[in-house]
């Protein structure tokens, strides 16, 4: 009976599993393989040759832009996730109280998250335009000078601004859901014991919320690492390579100027490694939560 049940279970799970292995595992192995060759788009597939780890050496030793993209990708992730956390927590706490028009605010929060990301980059491109954009128009109404939002120095921070606008609601909604689900008893006990609101927040709310915070932050970090669409729409990695996050560096290596698929693949393997690292941490957290009965 047990055996039969097991076989039945596989009948349900296997079709999905087989599909995923075919469309993810196989291509990933293929990617590793390509990353060890000097293949580029201008040559025939048969003309490529095996070059060992040379593509990786190229990235690590010769390609300054690779290091730059790695640095700004990590910096981008750290800054955006940090800002989104602080702002998101603020919004969540605000929502947790009974504020007027909560439902309407909620709906507004959802907008940036679900609108097509490339469309978001278009909207912001309009608003950030130096001559005709709304942002500089508002600044000029206050008698302030024009800012070249997408200039070499400013573009990276504009990107952060857009990302924070787009994803703060994500953190806010998750933490708000977390706050709503917190047990009441510890709070009653704390009040009886004479704890002040600050103490309650730092010693009760934050620790209780910790798993939710961790999950939200990890999800955002992974997304920041993957970031491609909005940057592409807004700056295409430019000006120069000022906003060339790792995904965009792969794009430039492999498709845009040089067609070095081999080198781009090596970079893709590195990106895959980074995201797998974060994903592993995330999954551990989720797993603990699931076993903990959350």
């Amino acid at each position: 009976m047990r055996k039969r049940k097991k076989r039945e279970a596989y009948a349900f799970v296997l079709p999905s599993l087989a599909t995923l292995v075919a469309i993810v595992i196989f291509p990933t192995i293929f990617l590793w393989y390509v990353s060890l060759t000097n293949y580029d788009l201008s040559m025939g597939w048969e003309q490529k040759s095996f070059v060992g780890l040379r593509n990786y050496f190229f990235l690590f030793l010769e390609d300054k832009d690779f290091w730059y993209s790695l640095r700004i990708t990590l910096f981008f992730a750290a800054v955006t996730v940090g800002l989104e956390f602080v702002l998101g927590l603020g919004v969540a706490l605000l929502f947790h109280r009974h504020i007027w028009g909560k439902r309407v605010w909620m709906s507004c929060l959802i907008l940036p998250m679900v609108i097509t990301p490339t469309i978001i980059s278009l909207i912001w491109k309009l608003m950030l335009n130096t001559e005709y954009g709304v942002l500089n128009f508002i600044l000029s109404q206050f008698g302030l000078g024009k800012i070249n939002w997408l200039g070499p120095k400013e573009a990276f921070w504009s990107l952060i601004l857009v990302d924070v606008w787009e994803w703060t609601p994500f953190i806010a909604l998750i933490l708000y859901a977390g706050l709503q689900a917190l047990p009441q008893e510890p709070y009653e006990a704390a009040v009886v014991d004479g704890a002040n609101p600050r103490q309650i927040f730092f010693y009760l709310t934050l620790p209780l919320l910790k798993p939710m915070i961790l999950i939200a932050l990890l999800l955002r970090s992974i997304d920041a690492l993957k970031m491609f669409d909005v940057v592409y729409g807004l700056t295409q990695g430019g000006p120069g390579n000022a906003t060339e996050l790792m995904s965009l560096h792969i794009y430039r290596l492999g498709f845009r100027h040089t067609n070095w698929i081999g080198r781009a693949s090596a970079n893709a393997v590195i990106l895959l490694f980074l995201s797998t690292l974060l994903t592993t941490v995330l999954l551990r957290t989720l797993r603990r939560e699931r076993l903990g009965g959350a």
Partner: protein
Amino acid sequence: MLMTSLKTRVQAINPAIWIFTPTLENYRSVFQKRDLLLYIKNSAIVVVTTTAISIFLGTLAAYGFARFHFSRKEDIAFWILSLRMLPPMAVVIPFFLLGRFLGLLDTHILLAIVYLSFNIPFTIWMMRGFIEEIPQEIEEAALIDGCSRLRVLTKIVFPLTLPGIAATAIFCVIQSWNEFALAFFLTSFNARTVPTTVTFFLSVMGIIWGEMAAVGVVASIPVLAFAFVVQKYLVRGLTFGAIKS
């Protein structure tokens, strides 16, 4: 954006104009000159195909994970979840090359299959949560009464999780509709989807702001409409069913 889309060319570049006579000129232009309708059709074909396959395969697998015990079940389940996090730029190169070898570049089916890589994991995790919420006793009773597994699925599990299936499907639709990186590299004209039309507006900016905004409005309407339907399940969807609120 909505405002810019209704302005004429001259008005569009002047942010000081807040009150004006709306024009539908930009909409006419994106549909007639820029084949927007074709891209919407492409998007729709890809989105519907990938969602339908994901829901079918994913729900079956979710049932397997929710109701059976087998060795290394959780390891497999979490490995599947990890696939949802793959960076598109890390996997697009092999998809591109394989698509080229197979002559599948710029086809709807390639994109629909590639999208399965994030839709199936998502469906499995969402549906697993929904199925685990129905009391197992109902199914057991039916099985004892001589119902086959298949009948249990179609007569009990499916109807009871219908709201969950609908919500999951809508999330798949939104994700697939919004996807850019993979669509950008794997399609060129025949299967080009709406988000990639952004590339029309990258260089020749100033003149066509109105059209740009019109595309934005058209592309956003369906996802916004869908998003409000699933608002209740939003947190759950955003965390792949990990957090149920």
